[in-house]
């Protein structure tokens, strides 16, 4: 005999597993600070590579003024400007990463909690004997 209530609940749980399962594993396996730190590290690497690429384009485009600056012993001010731009770029990118991934982590936690609630409900439907085979 089909239990419609159970089917409804199982459908919701299956939907979650299908669509959000991967994201939820982050919330399950990581502490918040660790998770965000890891993402920031990846972002740091990405941002650094991206900045080098942008600088390469800039350097090729402005090759002559750049060489003039280097040869005219103005290299320190040039390095200062370079570092300043890099830090600014990095800070902006890391800030966005922090915001986005902190939001995602919280969302995943919220959904995971709801999923566990659903699982508990399903378990109760089996009479708490833990015999579900989902």
């Amino acid at each position: 005999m089909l239990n419609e209530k159970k089917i409804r609940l199982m459908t919701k749980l299956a939907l979650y597993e299908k669509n959000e399962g991967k994201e939820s594993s982050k919330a399950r396996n990581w502490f918040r600070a660790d998770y965000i730190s890891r993402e920031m590290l990846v972002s740091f690497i990405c941002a650094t590579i991206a900045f080098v690429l942008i600088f390469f384009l800039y350097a090729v485009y402005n090759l002559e003024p750049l060489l003039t600056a280097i040869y005219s012993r103005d290299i320190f001010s040039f390095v200062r400007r370079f570092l300043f731009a890099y830090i600014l770029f990095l800070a902006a990118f890391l800030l966005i990463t922090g915001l986005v991934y902190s939001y995602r982590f919280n969302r995943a936690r919220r959904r995971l909690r709801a999923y566990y609630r659903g699982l508990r409900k399903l378990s109760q439907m089996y009479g708490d004997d833990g015999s579900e085979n989902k």
Partner: protein
Amino acid sequence: MRTLLEIREYMKGFWSRYSQAVTIGVKFLITLLALNLINSRIGYNEQLAGILPTLLISLLCSLIPYGAICGILAVVILVHLWSLSMPVFAVAAIIFLLMFLLYFRFSPGDGILIILTPLLSVIGIPYVIPIAAGLLYTPASIISVIFGIIIQSILTFVPANETQLTASTADEIVTALKLAMDGIFRNSTMIVLIFAFACTIAVVYVIRRLRIANAWIIGSGAGSVVCLIILIIGGIGYDTNLNIAAAFLGIAVSFLISLVLTFFFFNLDYTRIESLQFEDDDYYYYVKAVPKVSVKTPKRTVKTISHGRGYETGYEPENRYRNSRDSYDGAEDRDSYYEDIPSDEDRGYAESQTGYMPGDTEYSDSLSDRLSDSMSDDLSGDGTGYEDNNRTMDLSGEDGFIDDRAGRSGQNRR
């Protein structure tokens, strides 16, 4: 109008039945068109530009997500550019690398916009992209659209300057690099387009989120006007190649297309129809879950102090149109307005047939928000068979069903 509604219902049924095949077909077609465009503009590598590789790549792309399709198309473009000249290859490679490093790091899943922007530019209606992005996506899609415009700029610039871009000596390479960067980045048409599209997406998005009647249509109209104004100002202030008359025509056509989009997508999301498989001790279940549209309207309390009767009525409006007294037909006088709140039975024909609630107006953020909301709901049955608060589960006959035999034999899975 009735015919249109019937078409919409038919499309929804068609989609729910053949969604996977349609998705594959659409991806194949889009990739094929994109490859065709790339080959016709910059098909310098003749082996790759042949019919067989094109078809094979299209077939491959029909099975992968749009983000990955973008990656493959980027590789195809790079191979062609490599065949032409190293400097322009380098510039394009850096642009694509930046795109993947900076943007796909957050993978918002609107890669299709990157592909469609150059494609629609060919037929003169790229303006439909920012309007559609504002209607169907978030403002983050601005970045996708910008990359689409940059790719369009590459596809226009390179064939027009291919002789200058070929280089062999070191000096020539540096000159060609500068020329490539000038051509791609210092392209006033591109900059004006980027600015116009970004503003259009923002305007459309903001307006369609407002709680006003016909927000989608007003948003599309306002976005079209903003786009046209910026293009005109840009055309006057900068040296753009844009033909304003053609742009006006393109924007008008785009607005009409956005009306069609509004009709088909407002309140409906075809892509959220899901087919699921799961099992318990007794059965295998093959369920097709068709989303209803849920309401997330703020609770509104109307306090009427008049006629000396002074009563308080609390109700949750079912429909944004009913939030506005002007747009509610029954709002002849105050009493009849509040007393004539339609009951569930009055809410239209579609609910009984399709599980959608036509009176409902606004999605919650995403499927999963709805999931988490509904999970906490009391699941104590509403006596309507296979419906719950959010979805109609089609468990019958042909589409998604519970096959008792499958449960027992474990072989007749669909």
